[in-house]
């Protein structure tokens, strides 16, 4: 038996052109502005689309699929214009909707094969691809069963299978972990990681769960009330305006007080609780020197001295809060 081994290692592939380019897109539904002058360039990557319910995530995806016509602006997806080449866009892009969207009285193999044909694959190749993709999502044995007998997790896998069966360049996953139990969610996140990491298919992962985005994405786009809050690599976000975690063997309270006396902000809640970890604000070049000198002065051993990254939650709450305040001021 011949074994196909052509998985792409995304980490080693050369940086390619942007997979999505959005230029000044505004979409209004009657009086409600779902997307407000969004301009955005998304690299070929695993991208998290983050925002609360109603932030405009699904409208942005539908616009990028060429299903919603923006009032102003334009967008290009995998090199095709979404308004004039919508069919071409959808031929090269996959979509996994959030809601249940499967014909229950059909077998998974039939439906996924049909979806491959719906993306233009010839019948024979479509069947073969359906079998391969079912294997990839872990439904190899169950694919000849009617979908109505599937669990929520299995149905999500079928939805994922139909989204990648035609080997798209990009796949939109709209809340793929919604309604899943912890094990199912874990399995789904692993699959999503594999789609970009091993299969080399760019992913736009829409979710309001920060943990999921942090886990599988290396680029994040945050939307709030139809506006773009930020769009940047997750790694880059982690290094901005960081803080230092300090742990010492010695009198932590005295250590923290001395730092404060020197004008350095220290969060000392844990110290007062009897734990010796302190978070020191890293906004001056002299902070590391001060900590070192103080440790020598107090004869305390430094157990931990590392920069504390801002979590996605910090970024989300901070940036979205700032964006809302700015919006309130202009009103």
């Amino acid at each position: 038996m011949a074994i196909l081994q052509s998985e792409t290692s995304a980490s080693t592939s050369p940086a390619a052109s942007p997979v999505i380019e959005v230029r000044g897109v505004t979409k209004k539904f009657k009086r409600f502005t779902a997307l407000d002058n969004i301009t955005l360039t998304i690299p070929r990557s695993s991208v998290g689309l983050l925002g609360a319910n109603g932030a405009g995530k699904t409208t942005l995806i539908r616009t990028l699929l060429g299903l919603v016509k923006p009032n102003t602006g334009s967008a290009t997806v995998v090199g095709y214009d979404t308004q004039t080449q919508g069919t071409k866009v959808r031929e090269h892009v996959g979509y996994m909707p959030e809601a249940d969207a499967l014909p229950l009285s059909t077998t998974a193999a039939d439906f996924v094969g049909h979806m491959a044909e719906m993306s233009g694959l010839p019948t024979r190749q479509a069947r073969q691809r359906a079998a391969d993709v079912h294997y990839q999502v872990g439904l190899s044995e169950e694919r000849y069963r009617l979908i109505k007998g599937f669990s929520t997790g299995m149905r999500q896998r079928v939805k994922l299978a139909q989204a990648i069966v035609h080997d798209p360049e990009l796949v939109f996953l709209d809340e793929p972990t919604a309604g899943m139990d912890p094990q199912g969610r874990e399995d789904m996140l692993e699959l999503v990681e594999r789609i970009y990491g091993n299969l080399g298919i760019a992913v736009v992962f829409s979710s309001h769960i920060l943990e999921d985005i942090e886990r599988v994405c290396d680029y994040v786009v945050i939307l709030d009330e139809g506006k773009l809050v930020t769009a940047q690599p997750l790694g880059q976000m982690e290094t901005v305006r960081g803080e230092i975690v300090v742990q010492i063997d010695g009198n932590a309270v005295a250590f923290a007080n001395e730092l404060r006396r020197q004008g350095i902000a220290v969060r000392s809640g844990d110290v007062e609780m009897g734990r010796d970890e302190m978070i020191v604000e890293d906004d001056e070049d002299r902070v590391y020197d001060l900590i070192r000198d103080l440790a020598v002065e107090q004869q305390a051993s430094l157990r931990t001295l590392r920069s504390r990254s801002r979590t996605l939650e910090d970024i989300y709450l901070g940036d979205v809060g700032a964006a809302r305040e700015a919006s309130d001021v202009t009103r």
Partner: protein
Amino acid sequence: MSHDSTAETAAPGRYGEVFDRGYAHYTGERLGRRQAFRSLVGFSMKRAMGIRKSWSAKILPILLYTSAIIPLVVMIGISTIAPDAGFASYSTYMGIIFLIVGIFVAMSAPEMVCVDRRERTLPLYFSRAIARFDYVNAKVVAITLLTMTLSLVPAVLLWIGRQLVDNSPLQAMRDNFGDLWRVLLLGFVTAAVLGTLGLMVSSFTDRKGVAITIILIGFLILTGIANVSMELLDEYDWSRYLILLSFPDVFAAISDHLFDDLDNVAVDQADFSLAVYLGYSLALVIAGILILRWRYSPRDES
């Protein structure tokens, strides 16, 4: 990269092997919108017929096909015994199976469109390589082709059967070849009109049962109103237009014009030409498609 791992590594006494099948990117041809359209037509027809579904979904189509075949076999059988009895007329056969075709459409059309709405499969379809109106057109083609398996295929078999029972079948085929295109025209028009109207009605609800009930009851009520009104108001000339509400009579009239072998009071009373009935049928199909397109046109939901 590909290699034959089992050939190289299988050793005596080993009964199984675990290997990673990997993932192969698709590099073959992509046929685009044309293939998507074809697939949607085929998939819709298979689902409506209950193919690759549970056995219960196949019962009704099988019953309806059997009901259409039995009169055909009887008519051809009687023609064999008594060739001059004129029993196996096309108009008689179409009159017999018209109700069966109507029930078939009432069952199939909701299966084709209501289920996609109810199971919310539409976003998946519209995210593929088709335009919205391709979806509508594919469904119209699917229901028309499927209905033709009842409105046209048995009638063609009747034509073949009638020629085969003749003393000289080949000569009979040559002599009666003109009947064949009439059979095809009648079967196609019946399928296109009933199928499109069935889809149009079904597009207003996502509940199959509601659509089936509306189609069947609407069909019976319109026919009843038309027949009773035409009888009661026969002194008024305009009452002849009421025949257009009665689909069995419209198709009986077309059949009568094509084969001249029917005695129908309503058709005689209306006394319209074939062009009027065909024009009316065409208008119904166009109206049905336009309404379907309107139902599936993109809407901005707030």
